[in-house]
C-alpha cells in the first residue's frame, strides 16, 4: 500500500490518536468526534479561521461563481421539460399566435416551459440573466486581476485556468443560446456553420462532422445539448474546483497598506465572518438575478418564432459576449482567394476563428511575457496599484479599447442610424479605429498613470490639500496643506518600481533589453528617504518631529 508521501513529524494528527478531553467540552464535540473518527474531519477542514482580505473588487469572481451555481440549479429545472429534438411538429400549446406553426420539438418544448409550466418562464429568464452575468462577472474579475498584477508568480497557472474558464464560458453560453431553436439562435448557428466552413483545408469536413452533414440537419441541437449540459459544465466544474483550490493554497492577494507584506495576510476569518459575507453575497446575487428575471424580459423566443432558414429579423445579434466577433466579421474587408479549384475565405476565417484564437492565446501568455520582460522571478502577494505599473495598465486599457471598437463595430448599423451617418463611413472608420484607438488609449493611459504617480509624490512630500486658502503677509495666496498620516505615506511609497534590465553577468538579448527599457520608461521616481525626512521636517507627514496636526502653508512647490 502507498505510504503517505510526506511524513510531517510536527503534525498533531500523528501524535494524538484520540481527541483530547478538553477542559470545557464544546457542545459540538459529539458529532464532530463521530465524523472525525471516520473521515478525519479536523484534518480535512483545515483552518476554518483562514484569513480573507476585504475589498469590493475581490468579490467580482464570487459573482461569477454564484452565477454558475444559479445556472446549475435553474438548468436542472429546465432539463426536466426541455426536449433536445429537431423533429418537426405542429404546435398545439397555449400560445395562440403560433398555433399550428411547424417547429422543432426543441422550440415547442421551450414554449411549453414558457407558457404551460408555472414558473417556467421565470426560471428561463433567471437562467439567461445568470448566463449574461456569469460571463460579465468573469470579464470584470479578469480585468481586476490583470490591472492589479494578481496574475504574477505564483498565480500564473491559476490565471491560465481562468482564461480556460472564460473561453469555455463563451462556448457554454453560445450552446445554450442555440438550444431553443428559435429564429435568432438558428441565425446564430447559420453563422457558426459559415465560420466552420471557412477554415482552410478542413472546413468542409469540420462542418459535416459538427452538423452531421449539411446545415441544419437534425443532429446539431441534440449534440449542443450534450455539450451544454454535460461536457462543458463538467469541465467548468473541474476547472472551478482547481481555481478555488489554488486560491485557498496561495491565499488571496491583498492591497498594500500599513503592516501588510508579502509574508502575511490581513483580513477576517473564514468562519464566521466570511461564511456570512460570502454566503450572504450568494443570496444577494441569486436575489438580484431572480428580480432581473421578474422585471426584465429576456430572449422572448415566442416573438422570434421557430427557426426557419428563409427568415431573419432586423437586429439579429448574438449575446453581448460574442459581439466583438460579430463586429470583426462586419468590418473585415472582403478578402477571399480563389486558387485553382479552392476557395480561401479569409473574410470569415481571420475575424472569426483567428481573432478568438488571438485573444485567448494573448491572455494566456501575458503573465509569462511580462515576467520575461521585467526579469521578475519573485513571488507577489501584494497587489500593484494600476498607476504604479503604467505600461501594463496601458496595455490593458489598449486591449479594452480594441475590444470595445470591435464590439461597437458589431452595432455599426445602429451607430449609423443614431448618428445619421452612412453605414459605409462607420465601417471604414472602424477598420482604422481598431488599430489606432488602442495606440491612443495606451499613450493616454500611460500619461495618466505617470501624472497620478506625480500626484502621489506631491502628496507625500507636501501633504494633502486642506481646501483652506491662506493669505501670507506679502499678500500672496496659497493653499494650506494637511500633513499625511504615516500610514498613508507608507502606502504611497512602498511599491517597487519597474526597472530596466541590466546585463549583469547574465546575457540579456537585445529585444528583451529594449522591451524592458520600454516597460520601465518614464517612471516618476518615488520620494527618497532623504526627501521624506525633509518633508517630515516641514510637517508634511506625521511622526518624526511634529506629531501635532499643523497646517503647512506652502507658497510654492519649489520651496520644499
Amino acid at each position, binding site marked *: 500500500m502507498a505510504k503517505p508521501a510526506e511524513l510531517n513529524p510536527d503534525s498533531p494528527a500523528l501524535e494524538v490518536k484520540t481527541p483530547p478531553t478538553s477542559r470545557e467540552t464544546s457542545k459540538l464535540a459529539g458529532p464532530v468526534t463521530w465524523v472525525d473518527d471516520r473521515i478525519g474531519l479536523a484534518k480535512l477542514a483545515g483552518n476554518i479561521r483562514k484569513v480573507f482580505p*476585504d475589498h*469590493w*473588487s475581490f*468579490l*467580482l469572481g464570487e*459573482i461569477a461563481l454564484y452565477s454558475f451555481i444559479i445556472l446549475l440549479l435553474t438548468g436542472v429545472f429546465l432539463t426536466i421539460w426541455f426536449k433536445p429534438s429537431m423533429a418537426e411538429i405542429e404546435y398545439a400549446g397555449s400560445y*395562440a*399566435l*403560433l*398555433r*399550428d*406553426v411547424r417547429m422543432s420539438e426543441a422550440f415547442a418544448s421551450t414554449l411549453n416551459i*414558457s407558457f404551460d409550466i408555472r414558473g417556467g418562464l*421565470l426560471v428561463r*429568464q433567471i437562467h*439567461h*440573466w445568470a448566463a*449574461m*452575468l456569469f460571463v*460579465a*462577472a468573469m470579464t470584470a474579475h479578469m480585468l481586476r486581476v490583470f490591472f492589479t498584477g494578481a496574475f504574477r508568480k505564483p498565480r500564473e497557472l491559476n490565471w491560465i485556468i481562468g482564461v480556460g474558464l472564460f473561453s469555455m464560458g463563451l462556448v457554454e453560453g453560445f450552446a445554450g443560446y442555440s438550444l431553443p431553436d428559435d*429564429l*435568432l439562435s438558428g441565425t446564430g448557428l447559420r453563422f457558426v456553420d459559415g465560420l466552420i466552413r471557412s477554415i482552410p483545408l478542413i472546413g468542409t469536413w469540420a462542418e459535416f462532422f459538427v452538423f452531421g452533414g449539411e446545415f441544419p440537419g437534425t443532429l446539431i441541437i441534440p449534440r449542443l445539448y450534450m455539450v451544454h449540459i454535460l461536457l462543458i459544465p463538467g469541465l467548468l466544474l473541474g476547472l472551478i474546483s482547481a481555481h478555488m483550490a489554488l486560491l485557498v493554497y496561495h491565499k488571496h492577494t491583498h492591497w498594500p497598506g500599513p503592516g501588510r507584506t508579502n509574508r502575511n495576510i490581513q483580513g477576517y476569518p473564514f468562519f464566521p465572518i466570511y461564511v456570512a*459575507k460570502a454566503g*450572504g*453575497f450568494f443570496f*444577494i*446575487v441569486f436575489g*438580484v*438575478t431572480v428580480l*432581473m*428575471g421578474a*422585471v*426584465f*424580459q*429576456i*430572449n*422572448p423566443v415566442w*416573438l422570434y*418564432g421557430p427557426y426557419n432558414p428563409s*427568415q*431573419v*429579423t*432586423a*437586429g*439579429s*445579434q448574438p*449575446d*453581448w*459576449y460574442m*459581439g466583438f466577433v460579430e463586429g470583426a466579421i462586419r468590418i473585415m474587408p472582403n478578402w477571399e482567394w480563389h486558387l485553382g479549384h479552392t476557395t480561401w475565405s479569409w473574410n470569415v476565417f481571420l475575424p472569426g476563428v483567428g481573432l478568438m484564437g488571438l485573444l485567448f492565446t494573448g491572455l494566456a501568455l501575458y503573465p509569462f511575457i511580462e515576467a520575461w520582460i521585467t526579469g521578475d522571478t519573485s513571488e507577489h502577494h501584494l497587489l500593484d496599484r494600476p498607476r504604479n505599473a503604467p505600461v501594463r495598465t496601458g496595455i490593458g486599457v489598449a486591449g479594452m479599447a480594441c475590444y470595445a471598437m470591435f464590439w461597437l463595430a458589431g*452595432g455599426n*448599423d*445602429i451607430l*449609423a*442610424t443614431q448618428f*445619421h*451617418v452612412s*453605414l*459605409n463611413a462607420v465601417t471604414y472608420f472602424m477598420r482604422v479605429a481598431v488599430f489606432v484607438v488602442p495606440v491612443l488609449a495606451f499613450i493616454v493611459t500611460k500619461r495618466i498613470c505617470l501624472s497620478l504617480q506625480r500626484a502621489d509624490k506631491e502628496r507625500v512630500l507636501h501633504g494633502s490639500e486642506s481646501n483652506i486658502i491662506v493669505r501670507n503677509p506679502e499678500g500672496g495666496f496659497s493653499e494650506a496643506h494637511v500633513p499625511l498620516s504615516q500610514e498613508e505615506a507608507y502606502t504611497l511609497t512602498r511599491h517597487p518600481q519597474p526597472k530596466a534590465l541590466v546585463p549583469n553577468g547574465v546575457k540579456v538579448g537585445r529585444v528583451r533589453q529594449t522591451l524592458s527599457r520600454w516597460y520601465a520608461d518614464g517612471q516618476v521616481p518615488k520620494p527618497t528617504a532623504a526627501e521624506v525626512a525633509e518633508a517630515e521636517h516641514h510637517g508634511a507627514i506625521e511622526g518624526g518631529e511634529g506629531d501635532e496636526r499643523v497646517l503647512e502653508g506652502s507658497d510654492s512647490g519649489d520651496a520644499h
Partner: protein
Amino acid sequence: MRFLARGGRSSKDRTSLRRHRAARPVLLLLSLFLVGATYAAVSPATESVADGAADAQLIAQGKALFSQNCASCHGLGGEGLAQQGAPALTNVGAAAVDFQVSTGRMPMANPLVQAPAKENTFTEDEIAALAAYVASLGQGPAIPTEDQYNPAGMSPEDVSRGGELFRTNCSACHNFKGAGGALPNGAVAPSLQNATPKQILEALRTGPGQMPIFAEGALPDENAKQVIAYIEQVNAVPAAGLSLGGLGPVAEGFWAWVAGIGSLVLFAVWIASRGARA
C-alpha cells in the same frame, strides 16, 4: 387607361409630350374624362351617375390642394422633379397619397433621405380629394376598403399564419415585432406599432420610399389581413417583464452590465466597506 399608363411611364414619351404647351391641360382633361368614364363603368349602376359628378368635384378640389401643397416638388401635373428628388406621382394611385399624407410623411418640409412620419395636418376629406386627384393622373392602387384590411374576427390559425408571413416578408427590415430597424445610408425601416391597418395595407401595395411593393398577386388581401392581425396581436401579448425596447440581445447585454453587474458591485462595496466607526 393601361395604354396611357404605359405611355406615361416611358420617360422619353413623357418629356416630348410635356414640352407641348397644350399637352398638360389636354392630358388632364383626357385623364379626368377617362377616370370619370372608368368609375362610371366599374361602380355599381345605382350610384354611378351621382358619384361621377361628385368625383369630378372631388378631383377639382384635390387639384387645388395639390397645387398649393405638393406641386412645388412634384410639379403641377404630378410629373415629379428629378433635381428635388421628388418622384412622379402619375402612377402611384390613391393608396399612396392616403398613406403618405395620413402618416404625415407628405408634404415634406425639406428633402431628406427619407420622409419622416409626423403629425398630419389634413382633414380626411382633404386627403380623399388629393387622393382622387392623384388617382386621376394615371393608374395605381386605390385606397383599400375596410373589408380589405380590418382584421376583426380572424381565427387563431389565420393569425399564426400571419405571423409566418410576417417573419418571412417583413421582419428582416421591421424587426420581429415591428419595432423597426436600420437600413443603409441613414435610412430606417419605421416602427409598425402605431401604424393603422389601413396604412399597413397601403404601404404593402404602394411600396413607400425604399420599401418594395408586395402586390396582390403574391400576397392577396386575405394574407395581408392575416399579417395585420398578427402585428396587432403580437404587440398585445403580455410581456414577461420590461421589454427593453424589443430590440433583442444588444439591449439585454447592456442591462446585464448596468443593472446586473452595476447593482452587484454596489452590494460588493457595501459588503467590503468598514462602515461607520465609533
